[in-house]
């Protein structure tokens, strides 16, 4: 709760700094505030008195997810110092909106009330619609913003309809009350099923699960790289935490489980297969993110005791690898005059061997090669799915993971192929730090897998 209040105030403070303060102070102030929020979140590990127990519940799962999201946001802010250096206007607004979005993410990981779920999703999304249009001169950025906004509003309408239907059946927004009502037989009510189906649609849109993924490549491509990194990591983590809480509270009625199963299979298939044909790095990352959504959906579908742990580990390691890669992309893109094709990575090894090595580690982690965190994460998901009896789906997911390795290796091959003229990469110390931290952590988490939610 105190972290929630702190981040809301921090956003306002950053806006004030934008008005009166020095532009250079923005990111440091934001980072200090985020570190404080991290400490405050962590003190909630042993739950004491719960404020507003009918609205939010900061249990261990939510504390873990919140800490992970704060860490990723700190990394993105560190990256932001260099990224926003040449930008004249609205820097404070960019930082503040990201902080606000993070506030919404906190609500998504901890809600016990459908009203809070709705507010959380909206607070998470509305800053993102704006941030996606952050490059005002770029048509692509405006298109991304508008597309995301329209489709997002459409998904929200479904989502709200679902909440209304659930309310109609159970006469409550409180998930505890809903749970009690469901135990007395409301779970087979058609209106309840329709309601949870609609809520699942709204949430699937946020995690970009097929068939609600159409926005994702265009928005990833059009949005500023830093915002894309934020979208691919924090937003995905929050949306999956929210999705899991919903599934955990309402249970998975067979009708909903079947829907999720179909979506999981489709997401795995489309994400991995379409990614094979991408030549733009950001679009590749978008489809890779869709593919990862498929694995995460499978963990939710299994709905076991270990699901929150697996989700946490998967999203966190995925987020670390993704942030690192987007920083590398920005550096390579600058060297290539704004080109975003995969070929800009060519000659990376010649230009900066350490950078190329870390890039390789991050990509291998996303691909799920042993000795990286991505492998442990995928392994946990497969074990979870097999334990819950989804053997065919798990086998299919393994095949899809193997397909996925191909397009990651394609990027690695570019990085290690000598170019005709070696690109000149300018790596600021902070960017180097972010990339190195990401690289080390994906290996470190593979050696010491976190096993914290219990």
């Amino acid at each position, binding site marked *: 709760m105190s972290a929630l209040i702190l981040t809301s105030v921090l956003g306002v403070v950053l806006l004030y700094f934008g008005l009166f303060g020095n532009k250079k102070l923005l990111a440091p102030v934001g980072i200090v505030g985020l570190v404080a929020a991290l400490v405050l979140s962590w003190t909630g590990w042993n739950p004491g008195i719960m404020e507003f127990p009918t609205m939010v519940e900061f249990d261990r799962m939510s504390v873990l997810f919140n800490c992970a999201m704060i860490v990723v946001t700190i990394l993105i802010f560190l990256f932001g110092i260099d990224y926003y250096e040449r930008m004249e206007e609205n820097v404070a607004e960019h930082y503040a909106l990201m902080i606000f979005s993070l506030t919404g993410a906190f609500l998504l990981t901890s809600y016990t009330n459908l009203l809070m779920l709705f507010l959380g999703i909206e607070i998470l999304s509305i800053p993102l619609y*704006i941030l996606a249009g952050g490059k*005002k001169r770029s048509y692509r950025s405006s298109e991304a913003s508008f597309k995301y906004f329209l489709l997002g509003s459409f998904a929200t309408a479904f989502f709200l309809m679902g909440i209304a239907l659930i309310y*109609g059946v*159970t006469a409550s927004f409180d998930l505890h009350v809903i749970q009690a009502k469901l135990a007395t037989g409301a779970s087979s009510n058609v209106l309840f099923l329709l309601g949870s189906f609609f809520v699942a649609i709204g949430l699937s849109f946020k995690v970009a699960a097929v068939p609600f993924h159409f926005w994702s490549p265009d928005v990833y491509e059009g949005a500023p790289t830093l915002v894309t990194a934020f979208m691919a990591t924090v937003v995905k983590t929050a949306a999956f935490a929210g999705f899991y809480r919903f599934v955990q509270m309402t249970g998975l009625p067979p009708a909903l489980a079947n829907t999720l199963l179909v979506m999981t299979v489709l997401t795995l298939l489309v994400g991995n297969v379409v990614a094979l044909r991408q030549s733009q790095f950001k679009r590749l990352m978008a489809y890779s993110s869709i593919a990862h959504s498929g694995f995460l959906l499978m963990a939710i579908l299994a709905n076991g005791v270990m699901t929150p742990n697996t989700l946490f580990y998967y999203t966190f390691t995925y987020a670390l690898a993704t942030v690192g890669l987007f920083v590398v992309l920005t550096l390579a893109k600058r060297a290539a005059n704004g080109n975003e094709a995969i070929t800009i990575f060519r000659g990376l090894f010649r230009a900066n061997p350490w950078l190329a090595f870390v890039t390789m580690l991050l990509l291998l982690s996303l691909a799920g090669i042993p000795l990286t965190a991505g492998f442990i994460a995928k392994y946990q998901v497969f074990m979870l799915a097999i334990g819950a009896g989804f053997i065919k789906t798990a086998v299919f997911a393994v095949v899809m993971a193997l397909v996925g390795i191909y397009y990651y290796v394609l990027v690695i091959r570019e990085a290690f192929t000598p170019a005709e003229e070696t690109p000149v990469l300018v790596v600021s110390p902070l960017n180097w730090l972010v990339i190195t931290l990401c690289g080390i952590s994906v290996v470190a988490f593979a050696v010491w897998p976190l096993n914290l939610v219990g």
Partner: protein
Amino acid sequence: MQYLFYFFAAISIISALMVVSARSPINSVIALIVCFLSIAGHYILLNAQFLAVVHIIVYTGAIMVLFLFVIMLLNLNQRTEPQKKLMTRIAAVVAGGAFLLTLLGATRQGLQIAAVNPEDASVGLVGHVGMALFKDYLLPFEVSSVLFLSAMVGAMMLGKKEKATA
């Protein structure tokens, strides 16, 4: 009472259909106003007077006037109407039809709709709304300020004119 409900329900459905089917955007907006008014009628039937009044003031009054202004400013006419390709139309029909089928299939066995809450005569008065807002729903009430703040920041950021330099 019951007949009033059917009356309002019929108006809302017909006007909502007119919103999407009307050729001219102005007609659409006017149909939407009728739809909002009939929904306000539903609120009164449900004993939520405060909500009904707020609904009329905010939606029918403020938001729809804004809508009309925007439409007038855009100056829509035949030439600017977007051309929809045949494929888009077919895709839309297929998607809509599939969704309709899903809904029909889901509700095929019939719906059991029963009133869950007994009617409470005092529920819709301002005092009770205030009590609910500041006691039971204090946290969502406060948290929504973050939402509005970020929306305002966004409106300023996107709407502000950039300096000619740079």
